[in-house]
């Protein structure tokens, strides 16, 4: 009996050991998702190419896992408000779509779950997840807060210079401007004529004004929103130089540039009315598609021009994180979707379908750069970007409203750059004081 027991327990132990080993080596999405088949996961998507790309790939995921992904589409402008209301009300969202400037807000409110909860679970974590394969800057800026990773980079942008080679060649240029000063002083006068403009800087009074316009001229000139003590840095010589540069550059932009959002700017470029734009990499597929761009054959991409402080290109993008309000099954199913959507294995197809993955391995093949001409500039930007291009703390929604209002007033000439910066600084500091940064109640974290 004892021998039988011994043999039996030995066999069981060996079986478990081999079973676990074979289980680890044979991790599959299908098996990991089996307990969650039939679960519906609610997620917010934007009306942008990267989301259409993953949506087109979705049937494969749903078929393999039995998990249903319920996509709720919003324009960018509504996405934050819709999600905040859902989380405050304890709604249905199981995955949060997080712009990099929302991460502090979402994390501090505990609306999202650290990714380690799932990556530490062998039943859920794909052994090929390879977190080190994400561009470190992108992973930390888009999905990280206070040393903890919450979201995996999903819809990833860097500011790039899109230029019309045909227009530039016609004006006698054999390449794009290397510096912002050249763009204004050399390319600007030569390309602004006959109803065409050298450049368009999307500056509509929404996040576009803060992220794409205001911040874009601060960093390359050595400026910033805040100094190391979280006091306004907008009156510094460098910040003022950047803001004044934007005012001077406006003469080479279309009239009413303060009403231009991404759509108007990309359209102006796509229609051949504007020779250069600095836009997110996500719009690459739009401007090279002959159905949406008249200048598809003339499009070339370069990194954003350099300022006195270096290149400092715009950085933006989204991560996906599991929502704390979801139940256990929805959280697990949600994580499996995020892991799949951002995986190394799917990065190539995501790229082909118009998305921009944040996987370094996806861009390793030099041949890809011939097909996707934005890749070298993108990779360079992600190695040279500024994580705090816009502050990522919880107070950003209030501060961006102030930047949007006064940034636009500056552009319209209703106030000077100094007056605008003074007002902006006073209001920004009031928000930060109220939040407790100056009293020491809150760490100066970005």
């Amino acid at each position, binding site marked *: 009996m004892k021998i039988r027991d011994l043999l039996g327990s030995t066999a069981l132990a060996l079986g478990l050991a081999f079973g676990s080993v074979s289980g680890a080596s044979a991790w599959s999405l299908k098996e990991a998702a089996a307990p969650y088949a039939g679960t519906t996961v609610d997620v917010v998507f934007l009306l942008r190419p990267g989301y259409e790309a993953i949506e087109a790939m979705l049937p494969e995921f749903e078929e393999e896992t039995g998990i249903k992904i319920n996509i709720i589409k919003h324009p960018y402008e509504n996405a934050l408000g819709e999600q905040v209301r859902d989380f405050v009300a304890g709604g249905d969202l199981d995955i949060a779509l997080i712009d990099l400037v929302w991460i502090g807000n979402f994390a501090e409110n505990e609306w999202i779950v650290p990714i380690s909860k799932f990556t530490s679970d062998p039943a859920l974590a794909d052994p090929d997840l390879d977190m080190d394969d994400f561009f470190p800057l992108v992973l930390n800026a888009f999905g990280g807060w206070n040393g903890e990773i919450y979201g995996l980079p999903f819809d990833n942008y860097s500011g790039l210079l899109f230029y019309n080679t045909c227009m530039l060649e016609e004006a006698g240029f054999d390449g794009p401007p290397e510096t912002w000063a050249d763009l204004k002083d050399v390319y600007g006068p030569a390309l602004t004529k006959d109803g065409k403009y050298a450049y368009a800087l999307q500056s509509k*009074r929404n996040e576009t004004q803060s992220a794409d316009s205001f911040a874009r001229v601060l960093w390359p000139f050595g400026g910033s929103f805040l100094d190391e003590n979280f006091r306004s840095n907008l009156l510094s010589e460098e910040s003022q130089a950047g803001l004044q540069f934007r005012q001077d550059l406006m003469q080479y932009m279309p009239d009413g540039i*303060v*009403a231009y959002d991404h759509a108007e700017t990309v359209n102006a470029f796509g229609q051949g009315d504007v020779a250069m734009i600095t836009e997110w990499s996500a719009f690459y597929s739009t401007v090279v598609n002959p159905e949406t761009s008249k200048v598809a054959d003339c499009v070339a991409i370069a990194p954003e021009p350099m300022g006195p402080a270096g290149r400092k290109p715009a950085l933006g993008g989204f991560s996906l994180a599991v929502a704390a309000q979801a139940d256990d099954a929805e959280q697990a199913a949600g994580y499996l979707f995020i892991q799949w959507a951002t995986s190394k294995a799917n990065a190539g197809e995501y790229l082909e379908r118009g998305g921009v993955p944040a996987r370094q391995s996806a861009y390793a093949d030099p041949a890809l750069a011939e097909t996707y001409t934005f890749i070298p500039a993108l990779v360079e930007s992600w190695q040279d970007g500024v994580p705090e291009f816009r502050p990522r703390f919880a107070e950003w929604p209030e501060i961006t*409203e102030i930047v949007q209002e006064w940034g636009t007033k500056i552009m319209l000439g209703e106030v000077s750059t100094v007056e605008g910066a003074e007002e902006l600084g006073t209001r920004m500091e009031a928000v930060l004081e109220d939040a407790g940064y100056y009293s020491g109640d809150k760490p100066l974290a970005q």
Partner: protein
Amino acid sequence: MRGKVSRKTIFAFLGPSVIALALIGIAPLLYALWTSLHFFNLTKLRRVKFIGLENYGEVLTDGAFWQAMGRTFYLLALSLPLQLALGMGIALILHKPGLTLLKTLARLSLVLPMATTYAVVGLLGQVMFNQKFGVINQFLSPFGGGSINWIGDSSNAFIMIVFWDVWQWTPFVALVLLAGLTMVPGEVEEAARLETKRWWTILRYVQLPFLMPGLVAVLILRTADTLKLFDMVFTLTRGGPGSSTELISLMIQRVGFRAFDQGLASAQAIILLIITIILAQIYIRVFYREV
């Protein structure tokens, strides 16, 4: 008469309406009042606290709030007289005898702008007033106005808002005034026409007294509508460029749902409500007379 109706019957008839009104109208109002007395930011719910009238103080001393309020009243001051003048003209034309079929068609077509959703009007405006391919600039190009920047210029954007408000709500004014004109007894109007051929005299002394209730209703409704005008402007300009078309309702939405400061936004909304009630009372006391 009153003694014959039981309390149960009265409650049965009035009760559902009162309960519905309390649930839909009064409860949210009370909640807004409560919120306005608190620091209540949706992204900082752990810090909700009673702050008394602090939000009201901030609103009343905020230049941006009064600028938005001024902009809203400026819109009202520009669009309401235009709507009244054009509406009166249309009503008087439709009130004239003859051309019955055409007048019926005209009355029907007057309903179309009112039936158009505000947001659709805003989107239509975006397309029609587009600087490059909009039909308005195409139409104006023979007169030298083919490249007017409507949406990106502060003054032009405001003119555009006035245009669409007048387009959408002049028919409403016309129909209300037309209904008022039909109240004028035919024999009185006929007698007046025998006395004088001056249309202004007839309008002033015979028709206008019958139009007053309708005019007061128009004043109150259009004032309230303008004070809360949101959808059309939001879809058309989003309050821009800059703040040039940021009406008070857009500002409240921005504070409440983009900066998530529900307490401050509620205080703004309560102040707006008080202003609306005061204006309605003034209209009734100054203009309203029983015929």
